[in-house]
């Protein structure tokens, strides 16, 4: 077991799936907490439960089918999807770290959900609450499902990827319920940066593998990509941060 986890490809797989699931769970939990605390917990649990069932069905339907696709073709497609997906995460995290885009604010998301429920007519509030909880969990969960399916099937470790995602969801769920409305303290952007880095690293690696590129060093190259993209991310953030201006208006 220790030998398995120590493998670079498994290490990156576990890290990427765990962090992606944790980040998305924080965002979903904010909406579920808003629904539960504003309206009633039964509606929040119905909506969340239905979303979990739907997401599990997506994994159960597409997972076994994807495993039958020839490995090189699967890795090329999964690599391309992960490159796009990872770059979108990384771009957003870089822009937020540099202050060019406002950081995702869980307190604001909570307030927006409360306003939406309280704005609905009294007779429809239960239905609105269930739909909101379902949408919140399903849409955030779908990103996790795509990460699990692409990473899990390409490494032929779908079970491990699903188990890691489930562990992250349970862990964040338990901690989140205990700290309730303090989810805004979670260092979401730092986690997003790490997920983006891991997804782009895996995307680069598999796109190459799918095109039959022989990487120098084999699987160890994955860790090299992680280091490279972390360095590039740091450089982009430093370059984009507004320069401090001295008292006389000249950049310091």
């Amino acid at each position, binding site marked *: 077991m220790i030998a398995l986890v120590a493998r670079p490809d498994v290490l990156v797989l576990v890290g990427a799936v765990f962090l992606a699931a944790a980040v998305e769970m924080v*965002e979903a939990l904010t909406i579920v907490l808003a629904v539960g605390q504003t309206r009633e917990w039964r509606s929040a649990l119905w909506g969340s439960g239905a979303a979990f069932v739907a997401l599990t069905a997506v994994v159960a339907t597409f997972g076994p089918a994807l495993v039958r696709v020839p490995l090189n073709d699967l890795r*090329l497609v999964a690599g*391309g*999807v992960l*490159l*796009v*997906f990872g*770059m*979108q995460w*990384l*771009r*957003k995290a*870089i*822009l937020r770290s540099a*202050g*060019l*885009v*406002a950081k*995702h604010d869980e307190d604001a*998301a909570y307030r*927006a959900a409360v306003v939406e429920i309280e704005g609905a007519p009294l007779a429809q509030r239960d239905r609105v609450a269930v739909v909101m909880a379902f949408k919140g969990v399903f*849409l955030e969960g779908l990103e996790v499902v*795509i990460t699990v399916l692409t990473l899990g099937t390409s490494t032929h470790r779908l079970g491990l990827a699903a188990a890691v995602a489930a562990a992250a969801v349970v862990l964040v769920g338990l901690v989140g319920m205990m700290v309730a409305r303090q989810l805004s303290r979670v260092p979401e952007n730092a986690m997003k940066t790490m997920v983006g880095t891991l997804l*782009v690293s895996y*995307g*680069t690696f598999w*796109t*190459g593998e799918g*095109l*039959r*590129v*022989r*990487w*120098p060093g084999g699987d160890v*190259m994955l860790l090299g*990509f992680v280091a*490279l*993209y972390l360095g*590039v991310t740091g450089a*982009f953030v430093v370059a*984009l941060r*507004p320069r401090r201006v001295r008292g006389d208006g000249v950049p310091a």
Partner: protein
Amino acid sequence: MRRPSRWGRLARGFGRFWWDFLVGDTPEIAIGVVVIIMTISLVSRTERSSVIVAVALPALAVAALGTSIDRARRRARGAGSTSSPGPQPAREDPARS
């Protein structure tokens, strides 16, 4: 005009989901990845075990990311300059957070 069937609506919704997911407001990233795959596919036919391919793929990915960030930076600066004198962080679509 005939309304699309239930399956037609489902197919359209499925297509729209993937379009929003992979292209959305960052078409330059999707285009960049297609260019990366085509370029590496061509280069790797002659340079399969070469270090050139190993360097070119991440270098192209960094270039695509840089292009997308530069596009976002220009948009953010443009939005900031029309509303107030200082650079203001732009708000993003909360659904794609």
